[in-house]
């Protein structure tokens, strides 16, 4: 089948992309602003077409543990939720990371803490990129900035997850989840019947039994395992860091922003340049791994880096670590479901420049 163009919500694009990619299973629980993913899949009923299993779990906790069980069978399984639900999933996520299983988790972020708001926010950055649950681990974190990327990152997320036997997360927000845009959908792929050699599929006589666990009571062995994980994360940083630059070549100032904020900043760059301010944008596409090296290079030639986030200032800490004091780093953010306007961002940059 040829590629298709459709007008879709970000949440719907995720669901449709999962079916087309050939995902084996989706396990979800309703929460605003991402319920369309589960609703779309239930209506599409892909079990009848591709054989993809779709199940509404009794809780986010159950859903992520269904993902754990399915991933342990070597299947391509996923779940989605929004901030309070993702907090509930953290137990399962750390077990999945500890058992080195591939899976895809989607967080359509809303403002917090607590029940917070149902409006978009980027205040789950720390939770997504620093681990989230207990123990030393990382997720591979992808930050879509369009409905197209919501669709594309389903396949990318699964591919990276299986390449590194590591859970991957799409860190989106309520704006991208709810807004409608044109999206080019990939053709339907057949679900793969091949399962990895480590998967628990029933032990044939030809191999030893496969055990999926995150437990090792021997501290020496557990430390070795932790070191192995660190090596994996270093390799991911080396090979999988993705980012986009916009007008950074001659920039004196740089916005660092992902997702919805990156789109706002792109407009802010245009507005500022109309006023003669040479500003560019670096948009991290992967939040873990973070484009540390590139930011460090850019720090040699820019006066200020401004992290623009819909949070109290989370990613800005990684920007600071990346530039390591080479240049001034500041933050502009709105919270609680408020979205900054491009004018607001430019105005804030001007204030910073004035203070220089």
């Amino acid at each position, binding site marked *: 089948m040829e590629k298709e163009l459709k007008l879709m919500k970000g949440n719907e694009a995720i669901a449709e992309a999962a079916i087309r990619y050939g995902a084996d299973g989706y396990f979800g629980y309703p929460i605003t602003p991402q319920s369309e993913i589960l609703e779309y899949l239930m209506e599409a009923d892909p079990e009848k077409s591709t054989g993809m299993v779709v*199940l509404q*779990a009794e809780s986010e906790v159950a859903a992520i543990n269904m993902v754990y069980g399915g991933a342990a069978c070597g299947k391509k399984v996923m779940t989605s939720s929004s901030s309070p639900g993702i907090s509930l999933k953290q137990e399962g996520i750390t077990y999945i990371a500890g058992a080195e299983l591939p899976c895809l988790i989607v967080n359509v972020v809303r403002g917090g803490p607590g029940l917070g708001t149902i409006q978009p926010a980027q205040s789950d950055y720390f939770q997504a990129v620093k681990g989230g649950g207990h123990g030393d681990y990382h997720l591979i974190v992808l930050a879509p900035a369009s409905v197209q990327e919501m669709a594309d990152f389903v396949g990318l997320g699964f591919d990276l997850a299986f390449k590194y036997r590591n859970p991957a997360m799409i860190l989106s927000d309520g704006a991208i989840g709810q807004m409608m845009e044109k999206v080019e959908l990939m053709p339907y792929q057949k679900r793969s019947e091949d399962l990895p050699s480590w998967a628990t599929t029933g032990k044939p006589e030809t191999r030893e039994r*496969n055990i999926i666990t995150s437990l090792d009571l021997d501290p020496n062995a557990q430390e070795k395992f932790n070191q192995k994980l660190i090596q994996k994360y270093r390799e991911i940083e080396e090979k999988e860091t993705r980012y986009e630059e916009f007008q950074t070549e001659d920039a004196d100032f740089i916005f660092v922003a992902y997702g919805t904020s990156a789109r706002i900043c792109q407009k802010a760059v245009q507005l500022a340049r109309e006023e003669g301010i040479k500003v560019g944008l670096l948009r991290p596409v992967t939040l873990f791994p973070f484009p540390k090296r590139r930011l460090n290079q850019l720090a040699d030639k820019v006066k200020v880096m401004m992290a623009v986030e819909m949070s109290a200032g989370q990613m800005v800490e990684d920007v600071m670590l990346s530039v390591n004091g080479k240049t001034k780093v500041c933050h502009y953010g709105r919270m609680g479901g408020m979205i900054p306007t491009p004018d607001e961002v430019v105005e804030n940059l001007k204030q910073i420049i004035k203070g220089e």
Partner: protein
Amino acid sequence: MAEFNPKDIIKPENLVYRKSKVLTDNVMHYCPGCGHGTAHRTLAEVIEEEELQSRTIGITPVGCSVLMYNYLDIDMQEAAHGRAPALATAVKRLMPDRFVFTYQGDGDLAAIGTAETIHTCNRGENILILFVNNGIYGMTGGQMAPTTLLGMKSSTSPYGRDAATMGSPVKMADLVALLPGTCYVTRQSVHTAAGVRKLKKALKKAVEYQNKNMGTCFIEVVSNCPSNWKMTPVAANKWMEENMFPAYPLGDIKVPAGE
């Protein structure tokens, strides 16, 4: 008279008992007199006799039997505390021709995993839940469980379990039997040869029902905990008969229609 040589009688036709091929040679970590070893062995024998080894996926709990995967020679997944039925749900849905079971203790299944237990049974997932109930948290050192009997002392109910402040023992088998999703609910024991034989029969029924996609099978094994009950194995079994069995009566609670 010819000298007796034991090797002369070691012949296949003289075999009266052997360890199941589905059990590994690893030494079990269970305390002397504990029922887990016997429950493991009985399950292993059923997997062998029903020729299920190559299509069995087992889910282990958190608790004393967390290391069960060291003892059974089958593919296994180690779940988070209480979540085994959620894992098993996905495994069975994604691989419907496999034999899928969870093995869970009372803290795992009846406290932290209550939601997963109830909803897995309510959806009638075609899995076996094997529930070992000894009325106490064994691995963490003898704390009160949801199934701890009234008046029973534990490290967190040192004056005895008090219904007014600590609630009453939860009868999980009776609870899940009320749900249409379960097809077979039974309570068994492993403290006597007769008990083991009955458990084996129950396990074989569960295999049959799972093969026929009849719904969730829930087998509770009422068991002991000599270490945390602070009794000898013999005394623990006697105490179990006198106190646990009246609270958790053995026998079938629910059988498929027509059985």
